[in-house]
């Protein structure tokens, strides 16, 4: 599809260096899917959808190069435009259902909270499922979407690297502490964190019930170019959501490809 020009209806400061941009428009999407977002004159980036009721939103953390995408989107004001195409990819929905009685765990590290908050709200509103949320960040001021999770979860446990809130340590540690047998895990965050979390979750769940949302360098977003290959899967079209079982024998947690296609360690 062509680009759709959208207007930014609202900008929310979520936590340190993290803003949510609410569009003036509702895009039919499912949690885990992403949009290709173009800032003319800057670049186009894949961004996970962070909410969709009533209007679609994306959440971005400011990192890296001053002229790069995240710094540029931070200069956008309410009423300004963005150009989007999508939504693309397989989200979390194919992994929901047919498993009544299982506890649903959300394991979110940093910005990984974005698709998981969207998923938790949808599970709560449409399926009556209240997940157990394990939310981690560097410190208290970078915890993302704590309030959104609180409104729809059964239990919420927090960890911070510096101990400024909740347990001191990594969110992966919370899995060992609060995990329960016969559960389903939804994990999103930096890849090293996801790899460690998936390993810890193996104690409580089958690999087919450990669900992860991945990120890779992307160009087309539509499955054609193959830039986002992770060992025989294209993250943009076969994913970005995969089960841990599917990711066996892939580069998950180990290698990624750069914009030239070169494989380098994570």
């Amino acid at each position, binding site marked *: 599809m062509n680009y759709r*020009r959208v207007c930014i209806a609202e900008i929310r400061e979520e936590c340190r260096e993290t803003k949510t941009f609410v569009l003036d428009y509702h895009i039919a999407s499912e949690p885990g899917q992403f949009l290709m977002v173009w800032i003319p004159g800057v670049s186009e980036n894949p961004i996970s959808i962070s909410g969709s009721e009533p209007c679609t939103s994306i959440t971005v953390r400011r990192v890296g190069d001053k002229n790069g995408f995240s710094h540029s989107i931070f200069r956008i004001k309410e009423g300004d435009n963005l150009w989007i195409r999508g939504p693309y990819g397989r989200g979390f929905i194919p992994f929901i259902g047919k498993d009544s009685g299982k506890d649903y765990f959300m394991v979110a590290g940093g910005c990984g909270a974005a698709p998981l908050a969207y998923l938790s709200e949808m599970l709560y509103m449409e399926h009556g499922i209240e997940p157990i949320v394990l939310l981690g960040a560097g410190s208290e001021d970078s915890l993302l979407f704590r309030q959104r999770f609180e409104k729809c979860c059964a239990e919420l446990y927090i960890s911070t690297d510096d101990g400024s809130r909740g347990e001191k340590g990594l969110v992966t540690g919370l899995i060992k502490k609060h995990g329960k047998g016969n559960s389903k895990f939804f994990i999103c965050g930096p890849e090293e964190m996801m790899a460690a979390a998936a390993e810890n979750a193996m104690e409580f769940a089958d690999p087919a019930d450990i669900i992860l949302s991945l990120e890779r360098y992307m*160009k087309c977003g*539509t499955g*054609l170019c*193959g830039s986002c*290959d992770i060992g025989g899967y294209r993250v943009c*079209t076969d994913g970005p959501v995969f089960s841990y079982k599917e990711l066996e024998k892939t580069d998950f947690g180990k290698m990624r490809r750069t914009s030239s296609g070169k*494989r380098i360690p994570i």
Partner: protein
Amino acid sequence: MADLSVELGGLHLDYPWMNASGIFSTLPLLEKLCEYKTGAVVTKTITKEERTGHETPVFAESGCYCLNAVGFSCPGMYETGEELCDFYPMERPLIVSVASLTDENEVKEIIEGLEGSFDAIELNVSCPNVYKKIIGQDAKLTEKHTKAARGATKKPLIVKLTPNVTDIGEIARAAEYSGADIISGINTLRGMAIDVYAKRPVLTNRFGGVSGPAIKPVGIGCIYQIYEAVDIPIIGGGGICNAMDVAEYMMAGAGAVFIGTRFYGMPMERIGNFLEKLGNDLCRIMEETGAEKIEDMVGVAHEL
């Protein structure tokens, strides 16, 4: 069930189609594609040096076409050569696409550097997105590059042509004369898309290559013209969406085809199902048109 296998310029293909170069750019993805019904797999074009390609957006889409200017992203011949060593041989014939960004000596250097980890070479002289002048727009340059590639390998040599020319038959003849075993085409058509609200070209590279259903009649016309110009086999493509399109390319003169943009948005499993159905549909068309094997269809539209 009709026989879908073909012999083409020294290649045996179980099915008369393959992916277009640049689609599914990595070897793990091509290995996955080999699990499905495909006659061969084709790599993304390999360049000598590592290249990141153009800045995003490199891709624009509409209902009837895609426009891309990836710009030859490639880890470079050494890196890719090592990866090729790990994957070759594959379950299907592996066609490696190469291109020189300088002169014809680089073609030779790249092919020799791959140390035989391929079943055929596809010499890309037709990318619309990186050259000041496309090599395949000049018969003399095409000749030089084809000769260099011919000198570097005894395996089948395919030369992929651009439709952005006045007379594609002349270029095809130059490639044939210089030792090509097979002609392939068409590469994408040079084009542009402008976003009216952004008031600028969508692609950072401004120009890109048009693919998809919109270009099919251009492709059919080019293959028809090439078929009349040369005696070597042709791999045709450009905008193929279904078996009817495949049959159309064959009747224009293609002995096999390549498919690219049609895979838009398809998860791997669906690609498998699509190729399965493509085979069944093509068999049905062959029965309907009285063809027992693929070659019964090739070029029949010329016998007027």
